[in-house]
């Protein structure tokens, strides 16, 4: 029982890491139907930028962890705008179906190479802002930092939902998401909304980066695997549901830890991918996603 609880707790912690990364995929897909395949790199840049401010890699620390977060958010938003302007806008303008896929992947590779040249290629520890002594819950252990990731993920979900439902800007995003042409006719500057959604996407990725870095290690290559797993989470949960991301993340996380323990650690990545295939076969819009009807 204790073991199952430990596996579930660790699985949830792992799943929430995937979930916070997956949020970034959502906002851009909602507004423009495009995805930033450099999401993992946006996450990495946020974490490395945060480490430069709060750690000693660039002669710091200049700021403490909490003060560093707003700076990282601004940095992330800016990085997202660059991705949108360079990689996505030209593709949308020319109505290219797949141009943005190649250009966001290319930008991701460029960002990784730049990061390797600035910060080196090695993995580094990220100083933990809170105690790293594990807490014990009914005999199972959990790190305070893992709880913070959980809180962060839930907070992001609530903020995204509140923003979409309660603010006028959010309504503009939702309107653009449901029909870009109609929203344009209604006086919404849809191009701005798309730029904004990219800023929001990379901002959440950068935030996810500094949030998970104390657990996962920080390095130029940290985004690759996480970005991919988060993509699976976004597909499983549904690309247009905040709730779906959280549930998808938890499902994938728990699937990994329990399979690892009860079946074999060699197969721990398999059930998550099987789940992905099942979702794609049975409910392609994701567990919580709304089916998009494309009128031609």
């Amino acid at each position, binding site marked *: 029982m204790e*073991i199952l609880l*430990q*596996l579930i707790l*660790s*699985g949830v*912690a*792992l799943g929430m*890491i995937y979930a916070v990364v997956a949020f970034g995929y959502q906002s851009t897909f909602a507004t423009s139907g495009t995805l930033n395949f450099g999401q993992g790199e946006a996450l990495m840049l946020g974490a490395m930028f945060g480490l430069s401010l709060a750690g000693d890699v660039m002669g710091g620390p200049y700021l403490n962890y909490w003060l560093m977060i707003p700076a990282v958010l601004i940095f992330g938003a800016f990085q997202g705008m660059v991705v949108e302007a360079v990689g996505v806008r030209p593709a949308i303008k020319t109505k290219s179906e797949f141009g943005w896929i190649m250009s966001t992947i290319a930008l991701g590779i460029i960002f990784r190479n730049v990061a*390797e040249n600035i910060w080196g*290629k*090695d*993995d*580094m*520890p990220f100083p933990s802002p809170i105690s*790293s002594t*594990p807490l*014990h819950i009914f005999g199972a*252990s*959990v*790190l305070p930092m893992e709880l913070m990731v959980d809180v962060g993920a839930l907070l992001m979900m609530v903020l995204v939902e509140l923003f979409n439902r309660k603010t006028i800007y959010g309504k503009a995003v939702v309107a653009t998401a449901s029909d870009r042409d109609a929203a344009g006719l209604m006086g919404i500057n849809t191009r701005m909304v798309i730029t904004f959604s990219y800023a929001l996407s990379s901002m959440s990725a950068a935030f996810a980066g500094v949030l998970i870095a104390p*657990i*996962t*290690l920080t*390095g*130029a*290559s*940290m985004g*690759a*695997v996480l970005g991919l797993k988060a993509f699976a989470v976004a597909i499983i949960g549904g690309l247009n549901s905040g709730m779906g991301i959280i549930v998808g993340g938890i499902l994938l996380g728990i699937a*990994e*830890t*329990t*399979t*690892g*323990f009860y079946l*074999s*650690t*060699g197969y*721990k*990545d398999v059930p998550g991918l099987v789940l992905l295939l099942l979702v794609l076969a049975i409910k392609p819009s994701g567990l919580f996603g709304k089916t998009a009807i494309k009128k031609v």
Partner: protein
Amino acid sequence: MHMIKPRWIKPVIGASLVALTLSAQAADTIKIGVSGPLSGGSSPMGISMRDGVKLAADEINKAGGILGRKIELVERDDEAKNERGVQVTQDLINREHVVATLGFINTGVALASQRFYQQAKIPVIDNVATGSIITQQFLPPKYPKNYIFRIAASDKIQSHMIVEEAVVKRKFTKVAILADSTNYGQLGRQDLEKALAARGMKPVAEEKFNIKDTDMTAQLLRAKEAGAQAILTYGIGPELAQIANGMAKLGWKVPMIGSWTLSMANYIDNAGKNGEGARMPQTFIQEPNTPKRKEFINAYIKAYHPAHDRIPSPVSAAQGYDSMYVLAAAIKQAGSADSAKIQQALENLNTKVNGVVTTYDHPFTSTNHEAIDVKDTVMGEVKDGFVVYAYESDKKGH
């Protein structure tokens, strides 16, 4: 006009052309390939190895080079990827025309690449990769000559030492193996199993993890449930650090004993205090306990300024440095930069090479391509962020 050419004109022109190219070559450099990962999780090893080789090459060049020619190193990043390693190999052989290559950090890359060197009859001194079969792929009599040499403690030696440490010295009866899913980890796991079997033991748990895995709960819980008293590891720095951190999180602390990669800076830094006490076989520990070592450590720190004056991977740096000197001695003995002659010279090296790891006295023969022996290897331990001698007695002798 009809010109009468004397009969001897062709050979004379031919000979003078040969003489011309020869004299042009004499002023030329001797090109030596260096292949290793300069990026990614195993880059501390690749970079330290490269820097060790460079340090030795610079010293040799300052002293006038070999056979009056300077050494030119051609460095390539194989990114620890098998397919990239093969590309780098093709490039070094066919475009750069290297006379020999030093390097290979990753067993998988070494195995994928070295058959091209074997085919091209260009000797390779593997100075870091440890997979036991690396030097055994092209053994005579099946192949007329084996071009693959090694200056590094093979996994056979390492697994023997790991098991001896766990079973004989520390008397553990139940051990678990945690190995990564790469060639390195899985071949190492097999060697550990063999070494345990030689003592009539079987691991109580055998777990796998992937590169970049951040959560080790399942693996550690399985080992814990099986009653393991120690964890034997085969992996690289970042993931090994996650194992140490995972143990601290679960509140289950048993000794970690593993392959030499537990000495990597990215293990020590990322595990922090959770990584203390881990033990691993080492051919070199950054401790100036002989004049040669003192000289080497000072020169390395002066040239590359590593953080905290700590060589990222001292073993790789030392073996890289030694491999360059052994190769230089072989080229000198061969009397030319001819790859086949260098191979012969390596197998019958007459001069003693005073290296950092050990003194190389006839390091290779036609049947033995391993320069490092159990006696050249000691147990290291992570202490206060450095790798130190686990046993005081090794510090003096060795």
